[in-house]
């Protein structure tokens, strides 16, 4: 049996990891959720279920990574789910209706994401409209765009004759029995994490989140960096939309419903406070996996998926409790 002093040492080590290590909070949250879930369902720790969790998490990881840079600089992007949904619709139409080569359709949709991000960034920076308002606008506006161009119905291969499958469905397929979507999502998260933690621009994003005026006075181009984070967010949202469309084999204007808030929840769970300046992209990836696990365990337990939102809300509030007040109130 462990002696009292040894137990205290372990407790101190865990507390140190929780408070001092930048990955401490999300990793311990993930462990806690995994332990609880393994007690709740015997099917939780199976390979098939792990695969399902990662596939569910993949679009959320990509959206979360994009929006994490926005939150890191003290702003917010509520419009990502509408960018993703409308991107899926555009991709499906270009692919199924216009029969464009996949690479060309892909390029057009990614350019659409870049354009939306740049427009949002310009409105926030040049017209000084709060990001909350601008992205609430893109949330509704781009849903409308998706509805208009799709006629409000899903764009599927069976909508056209002759029938042709979606050419980019391999994105939702498998390579050596490993699902492609999680591989792409994790690769994006690792790449963005490396960029943000190791590059000069990443350092500047943290500085803007910490003290915007001080960053500007030291010669950091605050406006340019703010536009940059919205472009990244828009681009990754468009890419997540393509993946979702491949996964669902359709482009639907109401796809990705609720993903904006889930991605922002992943950001908070990952340790980035709303005021910005702290946290890591890998933490956000872990946050997205936690949300996917919650969704998964609800399915495994046979509980109505409607409870999903309530459980995510509770976890989010718990995550919020551990953030310093100083970090939240800017």
């Amino acid at each position, binding site marked *: 049996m462990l002696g009292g002093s040894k137990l205290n040492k372990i407790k101190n080590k865990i507390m140190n990891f929780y408070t001092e290590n930048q990955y401490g909070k999300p990793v311990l949250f993930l462990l806690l959720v995994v332990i609880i879930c393994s007690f709740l369902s015997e099917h939780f720790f199976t390979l098939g279920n792990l695969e399902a969790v990662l596939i569910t998490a993949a679009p959320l990881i990509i959206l979360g990574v994009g929006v994490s840079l926005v939150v890191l600089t003290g702003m917010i992007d509520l419009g990502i789910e509408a960018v993703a949904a409308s991107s899926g619709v555009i991709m499906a139409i270009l692919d199924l209706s216009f029969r464009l080569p996949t690479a060309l359709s892909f390029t057009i949709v990614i350019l659409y994401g870049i354009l939306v991000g740049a427009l949002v960034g310009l409105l926030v920076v040049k017209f000084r409209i709060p990001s909350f308002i601008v992205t609430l606008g893109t949330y509704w506006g781009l849903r409308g765009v998706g509805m208009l161009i799709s006629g409000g119905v899903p764009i599927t291969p069976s909508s056209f004759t002759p029938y042709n499958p979606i050419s980019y469905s391999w994105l939702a397929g498998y390579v050596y029995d490993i699902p492609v979507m999680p591989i792409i999502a994790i690769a994006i998260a690792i790449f963005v994490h490396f960029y943000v933690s190791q*590059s000069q621009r990443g*350092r500047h994003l*943290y500085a803007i989140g*910490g003290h915007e005026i*001080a960053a500007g006075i030291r010669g*950091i181009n605050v406006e340019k960096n703010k536009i940059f984070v919205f472009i990244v967010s828009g681009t990754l949202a468009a890419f997540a939309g393509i993946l979702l469309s491949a996964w669902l084999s359709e482009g639907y204007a109401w796809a990705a419903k609720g993903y904006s808030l889930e991605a922002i929840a992943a950001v908070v769970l990952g340790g980035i406070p709303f005021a910005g300046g702290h946290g890591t992209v890998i933490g956000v990836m872990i946050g997205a996996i936690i949300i996917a696990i919650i969704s998964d365990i609800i399915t495994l337990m046979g509980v109505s998926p409607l409870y999903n939102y309530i459980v995510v809300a509770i976890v989010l509030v718990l995550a919020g409790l551990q953030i310093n007040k100083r970090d939240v109130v800017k």
Partner: protein
Amino acid sequence: MEADARIKIEGISKSFGPIKALRDVNFELGHKEIIGLVGDNAAGKSTLLKIISGAYQQDEGSIYIEGNKVDIKNPIYAQKSGIEIVYQDFMLAPNLDITANIFLGREIYKNWGFMRKLEKDKMKINAKKTLEKLGFDMDINSNVSNLSGGQQQTVAIARALHFEPAMILMDEPTASLSLGAVEELLERVKKVREHGASIIYVSHRIPEVIEIADRILVLRRGKIANELDPKTTNVTEIVKNMTGTSIN
């Protein structure tokens, strides 16, 4: 002989709407000279420093550095021209460590494909050297949010001195320091001057301005009201010039 002044301010004026913050300000700062700038609240001291450091643009007037007319259009230009500023409210990023703050905006990096990869170890070594040279005993990995007000001020000063600027603007640098720390700072400022820097020193603490300055300029309602010699002036005379009234 160095003929040109380090910096020459000629006819600088600045308004914020109907308020005239600065009116036709003229002065020169010589090499290795310390000018004490004093004035009542809203006399225009901070506005003048912000214009010289590129944070504000003047409405009228010209600035010359080493005899050459310059347009200090932003803080980067000022830094490249050898001008550093220490702000009263530090202007540090509290979420970053001491090293990151010292190098903020002027990080050491190497081009690594499409990205500028930070040379973190190199910056740490250099930051440590600067702190040691200045006699500051601090852990360079400490987050600024964990430091006391005095320590944060120390980091702000170390940041200004790190790049060995030709000119340092100090806006109330001792506002958050204890009396002992003020003495230390004044000694350091004198040493910095000996190394060749010119300094504009703004403070409400008039005795310390008398102690450190070679000349004292008094700003009143946006204008230079008088120039005083610290060897012959006293607190009463300075306050009288600042307020424009006689004091018994």
